[in-house]
């Protein structure tokens, strides 16, 4: 495998940093005085600036520098954090994203405009003209700074020269390097750092400014800062010197000492902690998943062989392998799981922006962020969820005055929740707005010919219409909802994930859209059935029940293809006819009732073989035109079985039903 492109690595890192900063800013927006968040944002900006410059993203580094400076002042308490300032930095962050993606473009004008906004936000926040703060020049103090970095510091990307430069920015410096640790030439490792430094610094800045220089290497280094005698050229007020040399410095100094003594242990602990998290490219995980899938297949062949032979030792080994491969599979699944928090995090910003754009005040409540889902599912869920949340904010929530008139709290609520439920994760997007206007949906559907006039539909069927391609309640389209994916794309993505959409809406109280998604995309529980001579897998999560198709029922149902199931008529599809098997049907055929959401369809099969751990293999592009199957799997005996696409079959069954209803 090739070494990863450093630029790509930086981009991933920058994206993560930006996400962190954004999270910090949004938290800050709620709790403006939160010092921890201010520090976190500042650190994020600083790191972004530093690594940006290191990888040659100069425009990004320069731009970020200004934001960092602004935040530095907030951090030092010179300027209070205000919402205007947070908003300005949030906007600036979007620009940083652009700078990360297309560093070569011409961004000067945008940068300048954003910085102007930022500056005015800072001035507004400080409340008073800045000039007043610098009326009295702080006295000059002289420090002796001794520091040494760990031997591998340069290999880890720390540049000691940069640190020295930053010290020089604080004031006049005299730098003395301690070369005593340099080994003889044959023992010298060119990438290792053997020097330590003593710096005599005269500065107007407070002592914390020195600590700030080392803020990012603090944990791994040894630093001693002491107040030195003022140099002869600059005599000082003796009173001040005495007070400065006494009380306040002592504890800090002692603390530094304690830290430096404890350093080796700390470094070890830190290294161990870092080793606990390993960043692995997703494709390697996919490869591993493939291997595990093959192992599961090989193992089921082995158990078949072992089961057929009388060799007890072979059976014992086979059982061991079965247990191990089962555990391996479970472990593998967990590896790919990430908490939904990652997904929900993105919506805080979205809702923040939407609130601004619509002028509504919107509150986002999330629940169940620790629920874990397969990483690829998370990635593919992002787009449809953005659309659903936009829809809720834009169409669902009423403007403030309307809400108050309806006796609701002024701020609208968007509620995101995730929970696990029997092999599926249910993600719910709920709002407390006006709900879906059924009459309007019906009118629209009738006008566009999706349903016949006065066709009787259940509420669920009616709601599902909004996911039809080309369906849009046109009079409501705004600049918010016109963008990005349409509801039909939501439906398509969820279908592709083998999930289901369920809509609940109460007029005046709000609507709730639940997405039920299988936990993983790679392995599912399936029901293995036989149709003619072919074997097929039906995803078990879609199976409601299995029953026998009695001869009478079979005869009676000829020509109309309905069975009555507890007083409701369920359309069914004879897979033998659909697949043109050309063999005689078994005397006792079975019906497997499958469902997506509220719609049910029966599938007539010749035999139900049993449940089967199904490792899903995708079909090649040459078979993409065959809608009946969503994939294939390899059975214990090495044969290939096709996996039925439940959504497709249900749609087909419903069509058949509609057809027959229209005819009858």
């Amino acid at each position: 495998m090739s070494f990863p492109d450093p630029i790509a690595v930086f981009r991933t890192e920058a994206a993560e940093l930006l996400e962190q900063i954004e999270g910090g800013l949004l938290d800050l927006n709620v709790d403006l005085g939160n010092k921890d968040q201010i520090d976190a944002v500042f650190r994020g900006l600083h790191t972004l600036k530093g690594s940006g410059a290191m990888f040659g993203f100069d425009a990004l580094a320069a731009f970020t520098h200004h934001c960092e400076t602004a935040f530095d002042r907030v951090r030092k308490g010179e300027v209070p954090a205000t919402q205007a300032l947070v908003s300005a930095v949030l906007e600036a962050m979007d620009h940083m994203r652009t700078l990360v993606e297309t560093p070569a473009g011409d961004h000067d004008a945008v940068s300048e405009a954003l910085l102007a906004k930022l500056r005015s936000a800072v001035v507004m926040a400080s409340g008073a003209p800045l000039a007043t703060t610098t009326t009295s020049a702080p006295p000059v103090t002289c420090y002796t700074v001794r520091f040494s970095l760990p031997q591998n510091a340069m290999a880890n990307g720390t540049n000691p020269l940069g640190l020295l430069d930053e010290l020089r920015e604080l004031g006049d410096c005299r730098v003395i390097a301690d070369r005593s640790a340099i080994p003889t030439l044959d023992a010298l490792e060119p990438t290792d750092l053997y020097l330590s430094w003593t710096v005599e610094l005269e500065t107007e800045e407070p002592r914390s400014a020195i600590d700030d220089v080392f803020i990012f290497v603090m944990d791994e280094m040894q630093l001693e800062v002491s107040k030195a005698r003022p140099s002869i050229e600059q005599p000082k007020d003796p009173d001040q010197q005495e007070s400065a040399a006494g009380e306040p410095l002592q504890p800090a100094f002692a603390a530094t000492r304690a830290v430096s003594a404890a350093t080796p242990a700390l470094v070890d602990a830190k290294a161990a902690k870092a080793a606990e998290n390993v960043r692995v490219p997703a494709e390697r995980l996919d490869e591993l998943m493939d291997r595990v899938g093959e192992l599961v297949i090989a193992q089921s062949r082995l158990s078949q062989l072992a089961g057929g032979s009388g060799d007890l030792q072979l059976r014992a080994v086979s059982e061991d392998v079965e247990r191990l491969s089962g555990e391996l599979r479970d472990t593998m699944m967990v590896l790919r799981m990430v908490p939904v928090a990652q997904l929900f995090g993105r919506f805080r910003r979205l809702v923040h922006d939407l609130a601004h754009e619509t002028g509504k005040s919107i509150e986002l409540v999330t629940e169940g962020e620790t629920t874990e889902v397969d990483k690829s599912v998370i990635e593919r869920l992002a787009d449809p969820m953005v659309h659903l949340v936009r829809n809720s904010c834009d169409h669902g929530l009423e403007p403030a005055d309307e809400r108050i008139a309806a006796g609701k709290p002024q701020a609208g609520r968007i509620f995101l929740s995730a929970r696990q439920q029997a092999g599926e994760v249910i993600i719910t997007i709920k709002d407390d707005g006006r709900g879906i206007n059924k009459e309007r949906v019906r009118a629209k559907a009738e006008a566009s010919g999706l349903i016949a006039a006065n066709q009787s539909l259940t509420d669920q069927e009616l709601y599902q219409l909004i996911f039809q391609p080309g369906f849009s309640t046109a009079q409501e389209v705004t600049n918010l909802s016109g963008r990005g994916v349409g509801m039909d794309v939501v439906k398509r993505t969820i279908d592709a994930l083998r999930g289901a959409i369920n809509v609940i809406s109460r007029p005046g109280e709000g609507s709730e859209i639940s997405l039920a998604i299988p936990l993983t995309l790679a392995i599912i529980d399936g029901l293995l059935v036989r149709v003619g001579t072919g074997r097929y897998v039906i995803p078990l999560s879609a199976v409601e029940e299995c029953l026998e198709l009695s001869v009478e029922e079979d005869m009676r149902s000829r020509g109309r293809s309905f069975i009555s199931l507890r007083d409701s008529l369920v359309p069914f599809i004879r897979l033998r006819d659909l697949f043109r098997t050309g063999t005689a049907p078994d005397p006792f055929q079975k019906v497997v009732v499958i469902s997506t959401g509220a719609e049910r369809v029966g599938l007539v099969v010749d035999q139900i073989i049993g449940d089967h751990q199904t490792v899903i293999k995708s079909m090649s592009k040459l078979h993409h035109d065959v809608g009946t199957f969503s994939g294939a799997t390899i059975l214990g005996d090495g044969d290939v079985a096709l996996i039925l696409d439940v959504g497709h079959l249900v749609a087909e069954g419903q069509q058949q039903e509609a057809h027959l209803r229209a005819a009858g």
Partner: protein
Amino acid sequence: MSEAARAIPDTVWEGREEIEVVTFDIAGEVFALQAAAVQEILDLLPETTVPGARAFVGSVINFRGKVIPLADIRLAFGMEATQPTIDSRIIVIELEIDGEPTLTGIRTDKVHEVTTLSRTAGEPPPSVGMRWRPDFIDCLVKRGSDFIIVPNLQAIFSANHAQRQTGSSTT
């Protein structure tokens, strides 16, 4: 000159004078495929029919834990399928379909050998007098009194792909 250059696309020779190929029989004709593209030659495997798929790629096989389509070139040329014999083999090749490298099995009647074809013996397919569609053939290479056919798999697969996609909307 320009005629010949058009008819023998350089995708076969890629500037080389000689290429290594695997030769095999389909319906009494000798075909050749670049050896480098061939992944493996397999004995016949149990096939799984894909109901509703085109006859040309009517089934899938299990190739080392991967599910790959099995194509019958005969059907692409509009000929009848035949029963497999003891000599029948599957050649697994990697092919680009819609920009995605795809492993595909090809049914053959018999696989001969790995041999070298030289560019000088190559000829463009004649536009008349062939029972194969000329645009499905890259070139003919003379050997002894016979010709070896170098098929244009890209054209065969993409034509069948496109044909089905336009055809499926009418069914």
